């Protein structure tokens, strides 16, 4: 054997044997999953770029299309709900929602991120089945790359939203941003948790990816995106109100509105929104951990189920 071969053999002899593939322990595997993932940061970065570059590669307008959908939704809801159904506050309708365009776009931006992450993640393992079957990398990178790409789109929408607030002369300042940071953290952690879980389940039950699109559509109405919180509080009470507020996305949307919807400063919000968001954050982190462990457990059979 050559000297190079011998030195390699010596180095290997000093290393302990390690099991091939991911470690399965429910609790003990957490640390290993994290180190595994952090050693694949560069791959994650490249996958996010791939996701973004490949999405509108051959279209003339490119990234514009990722904005077209929320802008079209804004226009439709603004005209249909704000004008026709009379949700917008006008001199003749003092009970309406002030700054209605900003209000709607704030909620839609938050919801769009949630929907991008959840829907994208759900299909991510199946979409990358070629890779999953052939190369071992921590499989979490596929849903996480969707999260990365969705965050990029979110950033563009935020720029537009903030530009609009500047135009309206209502740029949010000061302590409001604390709500934004908190709500944003809940949003990312919670949607990643849901996305990871569904990505794994979808491998075994492909119906999930179709089901989730419908659920996303339905649940959009379970958060105060297209209507204001004050209408809810005036209608439901007691247990049902608690249930409504137990939805992390409701809190996220309220948090976004509290931060970015300056015209609505005088409007009604749940009094303990900050506490509720903190609780939601804690729950989301816990959910993320549980979902990641479930994902780790299920991923050992991904290659043969695809």
């Amino acid at each position, binding site marked *: *054997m*050559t000297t*190079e*071969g*011998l*030195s*390699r*053999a010596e*180095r*290997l*002899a000093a*290393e*302990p*044997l*390690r*099991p*091939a*593939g*991911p470690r*399965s322990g429910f609790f003990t595997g957490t640390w290993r999953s994290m180190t595994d993932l952090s050693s*694949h940061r*560069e*791959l994650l970065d*490249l*996958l996010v*770029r*791939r996701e973004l*570059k*490949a999405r509108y*590669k*051959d279209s003339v307008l490119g990234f514009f299309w990722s904005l077209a959908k929320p802008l079209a939704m804004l226009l439709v809801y603004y005209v249909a709900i704000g004008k026709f159904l009379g949700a917008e506050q006008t001199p003749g309708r003092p009970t309406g929602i002030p700054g209605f365009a900003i209000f709607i776009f704030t909620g839609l931006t938050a919801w769009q991120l949630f929907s991008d992450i959840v829907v994208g993640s759900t299909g991510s393992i199946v979409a990358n089945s*070629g*890779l*999953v*079957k*052939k*190369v*071992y*990398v921590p499989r979490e990178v596929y849903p996480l790359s969707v999260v990365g790409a969705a965050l990029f789109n979110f950033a563009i929408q935020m720029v537009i939203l903030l530009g609009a607030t500047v135009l309206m002369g209502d740029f949010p300042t000061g302590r409001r941003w604390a709500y934004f940071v908190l709500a944003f953290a809940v949003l990312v952690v919670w949607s990643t948790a849901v996305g990871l879980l569904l990505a794994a389940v979808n491998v075994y*039950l*492909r*119906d999930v990816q179709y089901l989730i699109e419908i659920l996303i559509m339905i649940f959009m109405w379970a958060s105060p995106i297209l209507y204001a919180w004050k209408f809810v509080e005036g209608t439901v009470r007691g247990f049902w109100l608690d249930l409504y507020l137990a939805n992390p996305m409701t809190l996220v949307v309220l948090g976004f509105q509290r931060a970015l919807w300056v015209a609505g400063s005088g409007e009604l919000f749940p009094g303990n929104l900050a506490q509720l968001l903190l609780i939601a954050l804690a729950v989301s982190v816990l959910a993320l951990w549980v979902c990641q462990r479930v994902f780790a457990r299920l991923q*050992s*059979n991904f*290659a*043969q189920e695809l």
Partner: protein
Amino acid sequence: MSVPVIEIADVSKRFVIRKEKSLKERIVNFGRSNLHKDDFWALKDVNVTIGSGSTVGLIGPNGSGKSTLLKLIGGIIQPNSGSVRLRGRLAALLELGAGFHPDLTGRENVYLNASILGISRAQTNRYFDAIVDFSGIEPFIDTQVKFYSSGMYVRLAFSVAVHVDPDILLVDEVLAVGDEPFQRKCMDRIRGFQHEGRTIVLVTHALDQVADLCDRALVLEHGHVVADGEPQHALRVLRADFESARQNEIERAQARSSTAPAPAARIAWATVGGETSGEQTVSVRSFDPLRVRVHIEPEQPLKDWVLGIGVQTAMGTTVFGTNTQLLGIDTPPLEEPATFEFVLRDLNLGEGLYTIRADLVGGDGHEIHRLPEAASLQVHGDGRSQGSIAANSSFARA
């Protein structure tokens, strides 16, 4: 003894084939879901230890569990029982360009694919020119991969793959892609890997590649390791299996069509050098003439027939073959068993073990019967040469 880098202990892997996948089907068939399950053991109680620096070939018929074993080593799937443990960095080339995205350019794909194979970006930057140079598709590196020819595609993928720096390399059927000069480059690279003491585990159906590259071969069959050792030995086991499978197939085909005629004749035996029994290995020297006797037993009168013999190396390569047609002989009609003799003069075989094959073919070209390893032959050379043929050689200033 080299350091074990792969330890496979009592590994079994079962595959469950569910025939339904959708929610509707599962609900409809809920109570009977076991009827819609099919499972089989892809691997059963496999124990293998592979030492560092060795090159191991996994061979076997289709569906014998070779690729499953490779995927277990790669951590892509998990065993149902037993454990697979490794030392050192591992890279798996199970499919070339698995991570290539058609809409990205060659350059972008190189970075992505390298990252998937575990090469850091800094390393890729360093190797980038070498990778592109190796692939030989420099003019197209900024073109989207979907416009590549399939040859260019695999060349680029292979170039990335061979620039990984693993201690263990798993290869599945992807050695030697592209045109001949490129194939040669690939094989050189693999030999370089061996020279550097990397461990290579390869799955292939190209048996001569196994003989050529590997220092050990495992034959898998129905999830069991049926042979483990020298490639020559393993290849013989595998070839014997293939032969018996082929015979079974012929018999089944005959059983299916009752109208098909029974074999018209069979070759009872063939011997070398006057020995009466084909069981023993006959020893001869390099330049000895060889007499091959073949005994044919016709079941029914045999009119138009051709008898052929061949000399094969232990690897199964035919180094010499002839038949009565090539020799320009009109074979007489045959009604009784008869023995015929081929005399091979000036057959200069090199040192090694050879086998004799005999086959009987009808005038219409259909095989009537054949003995793939009718006799074996140990040739002793003069120690002055290597390879399958011998020559009287000398060396002097010209």
